[in-house]
């Protein structure tokens, strides 16, 4: 039998045999094992553990223990920088300059009400609801150059931003969305394709209720009359004449608002949107209607 045959035979054997693993490995046949442990220079050494003490006995002290000293981790007073961090809501910023830039580049349609869905749709702003990001914080950078007249709904806005938008005859609302609603708003197409009914929007958590019911911050749960008073007050504070939006041609668009339970403009909770057949399934059952209207 030539060596070539031997190779092929052993290769075919290898193919049929199971893979070598720790489970089936064993010594070579007739290998000699030394039954005794050597006590010579290296065979009988301390095995790297040293002589005497916790090193040799492998009984190490607990972490941070300084053999009786006041340990470092107790010597320094604690400062809880991140206390409650896991409960805080984050609002990733979007400046008025960026907003104007989106409008200039036709990423946002000023003739429609702007909400977080349309801001994310522009492809320039993004956020992650699973990282406790609760929507847009509209910041005042570029407030001087902002000229667009918009009906915008954001999640957080400062007084300057509200003034900058209302000065141009626009309308701003701050609205709360729970993380699940934000997931739908971030990618509505994916949600419609999942074939689920549009859920209701949840109410804000206790620590956010004050912000979203206040007329000063233009909360979506605030009294509209209070808001119109505050609009006038703010215009007097910042020294601009408040444009009368009732006389505007697009007054209806500027007044368009979502229901506090509504997630998408014009689409009610409980509806199922079928993108393939371009139809909407609306519930008729009394039980369902009651559930989604509550």
């Amino acid at each position, binding site marked *: 039998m030539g060596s070539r045959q031997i190779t092929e035979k052993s290769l075919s054997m290898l193919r049929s045999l199971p893979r070598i693993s720790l489970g089936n490995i064993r010594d070579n046949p007739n290998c000699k094992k030394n039954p005794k442990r050597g006590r010579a220079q290296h065979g009988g050494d301390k095995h790297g553990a040293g002589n005497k003490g916790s090193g040799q006995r492998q009984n190490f002290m607990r972490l941070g223990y300084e053999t009786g000293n006041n340990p470092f981790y107790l010597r320094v007073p604690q400062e809880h920088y991140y206390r409650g961090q896991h409960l805080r809501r984050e609002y990733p910023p979007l400046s008025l*300059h960026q907003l*104007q*830039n989106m*409008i*200039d*580049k*036709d*990423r946002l349609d000023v003739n*429609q009400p702007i909400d977080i*869905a*349309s801001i994310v*749709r522009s*492809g*320039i702003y993004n956020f992650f609801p699973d990282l406790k990001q609760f929507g847009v914080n509209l910041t005042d950078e*570029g407030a001087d*150059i*902002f*000229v*667009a007249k918009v009906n915008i709904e954001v999640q957080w806005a400062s007084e300057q931003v509200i003034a900058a938008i209302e000065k141009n005859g626009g309308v701003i609302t701050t609205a709360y969305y*729970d993380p*699940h*609603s934000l*997931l*739908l708003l971030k990618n*509505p*197409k994916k949600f*419609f394709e*999942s074939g*689920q*009914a549009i*859920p*209701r929007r*949840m109410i804000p958590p206790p620590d956010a209720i004050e912000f979203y019911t206040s007329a000063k911050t233009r909360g979506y749960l605030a009294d509209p009359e209070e808001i119109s008073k505050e609009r006038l007050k703010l215009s007097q504070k910042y020294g601009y004449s408040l444009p009368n939006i009732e006389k505007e041609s697009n007054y209806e668009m500027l007044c368009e608002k979502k229901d506090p339970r509504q997630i*998408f*403009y*014009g*689409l009610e909770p409980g509806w*199922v*949107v079928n*993108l393939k*057949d*371009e*139809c*909407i*399934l*609306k*519930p*008729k*059952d009394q*039980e*369902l209607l009651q*559930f989604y209207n509550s």
Partner: protein
Amino acid sequence: MTAGVRHNVSFETNNIVLIALVAILYSLFKMATVWRSQCAFARLFAGKTGQILNNATDLGTKLGPGSQSAILAKKYSNYAHSPFVTKIKEQYDYEIVKNPPEWGYVQRLLPFDTIPAVTPKDSYPSGWVPPKEEAKTLPFFLCRTRNHEIPIYLQITYRGIRKITKIKRIEGDIWLLNDEIKSYLKEKNNRYVETRVQEVGRFIEVKGDYVNQLVDWAHSKGF
């Protein structure tokens, strides 16, 4: 004797009826506990509830008796190996609206197919400048990014010590472009400005932060 037998028989039938009732009640109770312990909408998606939003309800369908207890009784390691849910009956009334008037609201939510081209306007308050036609006659070209912005970036490394202005997406005679940039920056800043041309990667690196000046230069050239 006969009376006793009769009595016995009736007792047995009674017993059977009772047992059956208890069994039905028990099964109903068990179903109820299963529904309560799982979320209400978990009926269809047994073992796959992670995909369901917790404020969504799946009330569109209801399972017949005996369909879900068999599914929930056993935990499957793999969703793909779990059997399909059977005996589903539609319970709730709904109407299908074809060509609904609200379809415009849906279309408004769907993403752009492509990035929209910018329509010409009288002014752009944000400071964005549209590219000009005359730039195409130059021997070199600076292509806009997909967001219609000029591809000039600042790269900060070594904790802010090294600042490099990178001009990307350049085409044509890039060595001539390099000379022009160098002379422009030298004139503006009264100092020699170091540049590096990457022919293969098609970018020029300028040592120092000259982003605003170079963007202004690109606008003046019409890129």
